[in-house]
């Protein structure tokens, strides 16, 4: 219960840090992540309340909506950070299929527990998109270290959360409520890790300092040396 509460409150940490550091990183993807954190926080509170009042159908609707919105927000963040056009196109092509599939699953499941298949597919897609980003970085490395950019920490948060909770949501339909309560510790830990990484991204500066190798522009010095 304590871990669950920590995980719930941890959603507010990136928002708190964002305002604490005077909104020094106000990029689009950061704003999306902050919205996601706020949405997760509100969603978790509402779902906890609905669970205690045993309104399972509404919980299911909220969870299904959360899956869709989470996918939309994360895939948008990944989309704007991936450089290769082919990968961006793939995201654009796959996303409508996933939305249709998710709605279909929602209608088919008709209010039974967690829509584990949609969540599993969502996480597979997000892991693939993260691989796209890292592949991009491998073939076209930047002059700055990858971990010196806030984007990297957003991606790490998404990847760690998706991989960490992948098996939990995959098996969720096979777990008894006791087992679910027991194993949901994985979800809480991954949520804390995710918000911690988001917090790192939020407190990082927009543009990391470049590695200046030369003190002077040698080319410029050399340029007119022989001009008669």
């Amino acid at each position: 219960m304590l871990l669950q509460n920590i995980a719930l409150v941890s959603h507010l940490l990136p928002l708190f840090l964002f305002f604490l550091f005077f909104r020094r990183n106000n990029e689009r993807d950061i704003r999306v992540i902050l919205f996601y954190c706020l949405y997760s926080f509100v969603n978790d509170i509402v779902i906890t309340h609905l669970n205690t009042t045993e309104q399972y159908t509404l919980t299911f609707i909220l969870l299904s909506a959360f899956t869709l919105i989470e996918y939309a927000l994360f895939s948008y963040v990944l989309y704007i950070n991936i450089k290769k056009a082919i990968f961006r196109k793939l995201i654009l092509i796959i996303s409508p299929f996933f939305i249709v599939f998710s709605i279909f699953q929602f209608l088919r499941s008709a209010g039974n527990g967690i829509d584990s298949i949609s969540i599993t597919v969502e996480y597979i897609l997000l892991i693939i998109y993260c691989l796209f980003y890292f592949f991009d970085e491998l073939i076209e490395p930047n002059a700055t270290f990858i971990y010196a950019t806030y984007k990297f920490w957003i991606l790490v948060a998404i990847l760690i959360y998706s991989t960490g909770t992948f098996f939990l949501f995959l098996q969720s339909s096979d777990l008894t409520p006791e087992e679910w309560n027991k194993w949901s510790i994985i979800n809480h830990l991954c949520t804390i890790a995710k918000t911690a990484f988001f917090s790192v991204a939020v407190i990082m500066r927009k543009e990391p300092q470049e590695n200046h190798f030369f003190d002077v522009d040698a080319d410029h010095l050399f340029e007119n040396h022989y001009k008669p």
Partner: protein
Amino acid sequence: MTFLQVNSSGNEVSLMLFFGTIGMLVLAIGMIIFIIFHQRKVIRYQLRFQKLEFQQQKTLLNASIRFQEEERQRIAADLHDDAGPLLATARLYLNENLVNLDKNAQLQSIYNAKQIIDDTIQLIRNISHSLMPPTLKNFGLESAVNDLFQKISGSGSLNASCRFHDYRERLIPDQELIIFRIIQELINNILKHSNSSFIHLTQNISGPKLYIRMHHDGRGLTQADFEKLNKSGGGLGLKNIQSRLKLLQGRIFFEKDASQTYYKITIEAPRSEEQTLKEEKVITY
């Protein structure tokens, strides 16, 4: 999607969940660490490469400064050792003219002074020509190279010939001067080190590039030798060629002929877009 779901006993599910989660996390963290280390390696390599390039530029810059200083010293020596004494002698003759009242002696000393002043004029002209050949300035690279080769042939030490196949449009004066200096430097090297019996130069163009090739039958350099000498402390002339080529945005290639009899040096220099366009128009008409 049913393959994703496992229908088995609770214990088996728990085991699968536990090891599956651990496995996925290990894979994800492993991948992140691999990417971080790979990128660090790539950046370190790039930095090392930049450092080497910077050192190379520094060497070239030093070489060009040294070359310029040597050139200044040579001009200073020419003026001091040759022009100075000549003018001093002319002054002496003119002084003598003031003292000596004998008309014949006066005429003789004026004549001598005139001769000396003529020599001095010639000397200063030579110095000026060595700084900027008038043929190059007025008639272009082709004429300047022809002149140079005629002078070398005229000395009788070796046979020098050149042929410009396509030089209807002159390069811009700065480019011509740089190429001419490179040719001069190469010829100096050939005369000094190669012990060859002939030098032959040909010129041609191909699209936006101008090519100059020199053949000689003496001891020569290959590209590997050139690069090695360029990186070493010596080879001031070669470094000078390299820095001039950098300025020109051109390239040079040293090689041995397939027959292993001659050495070839090929210079590639870019032509301005204007020249290329003019050339294309002429071909179209």
